């Protein structure tokens, strides 16, 4: 990896000083031995490394793996906005998403897909970014409802984003306000088709256009107190 790729892009937009808790402000302290130490509590546990583009393996292997990935979609149990109420019925006898190989996982580390189920407030977007970056690649994003497409009924709100694809790469949109669970199932079928064709490379796209995504994210998240990439 070249030198400037390692460059910390926190410099694009440092968080406003007033949003950092006094305990977390960078400062110089004097140790019991009388030594002066400069500390930055916020950065202590940060791993400041950018995501990398991971090239797919050879065609036949990748096709086989993609088939397995498509048939075993592990969805993170994380709901935002009003659409989160549409996810639990998916697992009930009436809709039974298990038939399609869709299973819920409780932690981002073990899941390969995330459903953004509706409007995203700025506070939630921050959490979504953290969760999305923690998921292992390849990862897929399913955007549910009009709010993720153009803001929906909250298009002129001061606190909800309008277009999700400016902040994280989206694989499949399911339009509606709210879409019913059947529509969500159709979205899953669409996602499987996309994965099998090898077009669902959202994680690589995120790594390629990382600066653009980070710039957009930092434009609205003023109290940025997490690493630039949450490994």
């Amino acid at each position, binding site marked *: 990896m070249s030198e400037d790729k390692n460059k910390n892009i926190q410099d694009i937009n440092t968080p*406003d000083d007033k949003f950092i808790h006094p305990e977390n402000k960078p400062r110089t302290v004097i140790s019991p031995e009388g030594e002066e130490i400069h500390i930055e509590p916020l950065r202590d546990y940060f791993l400041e490394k950018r995501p990398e583009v991971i090239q797919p393996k050879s065609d036949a292997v990748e096709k086989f793996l993609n088939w397995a990935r498509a048939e075993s979609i592990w969805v993170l149990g994380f709901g935002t906005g009003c659409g989160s109420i549409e996810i639990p019925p998916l697992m009930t006898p009436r809709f039974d998403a298990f038939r399609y190989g869709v299973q819920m996982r409780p932690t981002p580390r073990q899941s390969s897909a995330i459903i953004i189920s509706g409007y995203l*407030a700025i*506070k939630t977007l921050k959490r979504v970014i953290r969760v999305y970056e923690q998921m292992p690649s390849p990862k897929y994003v399913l955007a549910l409802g009009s709010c993720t497409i153009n803001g929906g009924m909250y*298009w*002129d709100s001061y606190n909800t984003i*309008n*277009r999700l694809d400016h902040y994280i790469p989206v694989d499949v949109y399911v339009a509606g306000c709210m879409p019913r669970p059947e529509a969500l199932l159709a979205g899953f079928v669409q996602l499987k088709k996309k994965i099998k064709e090898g077009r669902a490379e959202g994680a690589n796209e995120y790594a390629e256009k990382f600066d653009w995504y980070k710039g*957009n994210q930092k434009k609205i998240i003023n*109290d940025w107190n997490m690493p630039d990439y949450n490994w």
Partner: protein
Amino acid sequence: MNDIIQDITTRFSVTDIINKRENLTFVTCRKENTISLITHLRDREKFTHLVLLTAVDWIEDNLFQLTYILNNPTKKIDIAIRTMIPRDNPVMESAHRLWEQVATYQRELKEMFGIEFPDSPRLNEPFILEGWNEIPPYRRDFDTKKYSTETYFPRIGRGTNDPEEYMKSKLYPNDPTK
């Protein structure tokens, strides 16, 4: 209900008494008297439950209106106390010593309207908005549409329809009278 109102009228000189329902009365009180009136209602008249605390922005009169709604669970009556505070210097005495949960309402009002409640716990912590740089968003001089357009990448080509006009044009395209 009526004797309570008469009592507090003489004691605290409340004005603008409006009977909304049989069991709900709105009164207006001066800023200095408000907390003592609420304390009196809570301790003497057994209005032990605070229903809500909210604010209204009267930008034309340069005033904020605070509304405390109190409930008496035994008599099943509500009383709403309105008080006006100046918009230029919005400071109100905190009521968190009467009910602890008022502190949360006051945090919200501080964030959404910028009303100060000195001594209220955790007042300056972010409640819903994290890292908000603008003027408080519930103030009426804050243009939320303009802010959204400038900040959140509006999707080009998004159209809106008035439902009534739209259905008329769909159902009766040739009859403008309907």
